[in-house]
């Protein structure tokens, strides 16, 4: 149902009635109606306390209805008027989710992943102990994991095209910038493969050693071990004090 027609039916109504109507629709999952009802609260009673709450609820409803741009507009309007309001953390959270939901798969532009990541970082910075900070931290990890996935995708492309140096740079990037991502074991194994192809045996061996030490059970270590054995090499750190570089797991 288009917004305009809904507007007229809610002529001057008491704020509680309108607000509850919106909440009801929200619980029943009829998000566009909910959004319209909350908009109406704000329109008819711009000065009531519920106008502020309704703005946030409208944003949440638009988010559920996948109308991400409308949700972000509603939130920006809310934050401009009420930056200090108690619902602000939730508003930041919804805004971050709107970006999060539009993340493209790793083969394509990661613009939304970056925006989601920055939004979550800001949420955690502003409201570290809000109830959303915990979920934001998790989602932040997911966005980082996704960015790591993008690096891996490009690295694997370079490897398939035998551009081993470019591949090495990408896989190094994963283990440096996204250490805690789920792609690290594979990145380490790829470093073993790529360094062997480049003929830098010590690097291949130390990558395998770190993989063995930190991810002993993972299939990637099995692949590396088999590869090194096949090339009559063994996974051991050959240079520098690797204990100090032990990863904080």
């Amino acid at each position, binding site marked *: 149902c288009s917004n305009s027609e809904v507007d007229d039916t809610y002529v001057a109504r008491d704020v509680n009635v309108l607000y509850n109507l919106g909440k009801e629709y929200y619980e029943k999952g009829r998000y566009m109606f909910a959004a319209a009802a909350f908009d109406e609260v704000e329109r008819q009673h711009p000065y009531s306390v519920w106008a502020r709450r309704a703005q946030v609820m409208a944003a949440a409803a638009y988010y559920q209805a996948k109308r991400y741009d409308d949700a972000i507009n509603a939130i920006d309007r809310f934050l401009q008027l009420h930056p200090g309001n108690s619902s602000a953390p939730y508003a930041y959270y919804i805004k971050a989710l709107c970006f999060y939901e539009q993340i493209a798969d790793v083969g394509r532009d990661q613009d939304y992943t970056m925006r989601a990541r920055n939004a979550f970082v800001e949420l955690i910075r502003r409201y570290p102990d809000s109830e959303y900070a915990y979920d934001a931290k998790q989602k932040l990890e997911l966005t980082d994991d996704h960015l790591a996935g993008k690096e891996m995708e490009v690295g694997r492309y370079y490897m398939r*095209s035998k551009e081993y*140096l470019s591949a090495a740079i990408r896989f190094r990037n994963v283990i440096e910038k996204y250490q805690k991502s789920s*792609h690290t074991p594979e990145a380490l194994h790829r470093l073993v*493969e790529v360094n062997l192809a480049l003929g830098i045996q010590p690097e291949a061996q130390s990558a395998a050693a770190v993989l063995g030490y930190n991810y002993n059970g993972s299939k990637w270590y099995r692949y590396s071990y088999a590869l090194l054995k096949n090339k009559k090499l063994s996974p051991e750190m050959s240079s*520098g004090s*690797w204990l100090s570089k032990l990863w904080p797991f």
Partner: protein
Amino acid sequence: CGQRLQTRGYIFDKELADAIQPGVDNKQSVQATMGTPTLLAAFSDQTWYYVSTNVEVKPLFLPTPKWRRVMSVSFNEQGVVTGVENYDLSHARAIDPVDDKTPTKGKQLGFFQQLFMNVGRFSGQQPVGGPGGPGPNGS
């Protein structure tokens, strides 16, 4: 017809590279003469690598390496060069990359989504928590 020689990675200047002496040079002098290393050792910052490959680019084929020089310069705690090794094409090992992939979290774009490019829910999760507090009678 159409095959060309290209250089991938670092461009070596033979005299400068061969002039690096253990015990004489240190990190500053190596950086000055040879520039930033192509790769740092992954797990210790005491070794620098300069990697250069000449590949032949021919139609139908992937670039095939014809010449490679990998120069590794290792330093001690004080940053003085302790050793210089050179690897060439003979050290390279043919590899057959494992055909496996770590799945990326969240949903890959389905066939039809890619076809019509309508990006739906990335994770499909519901947002956590409600909009801060109960209804109108609450604060």
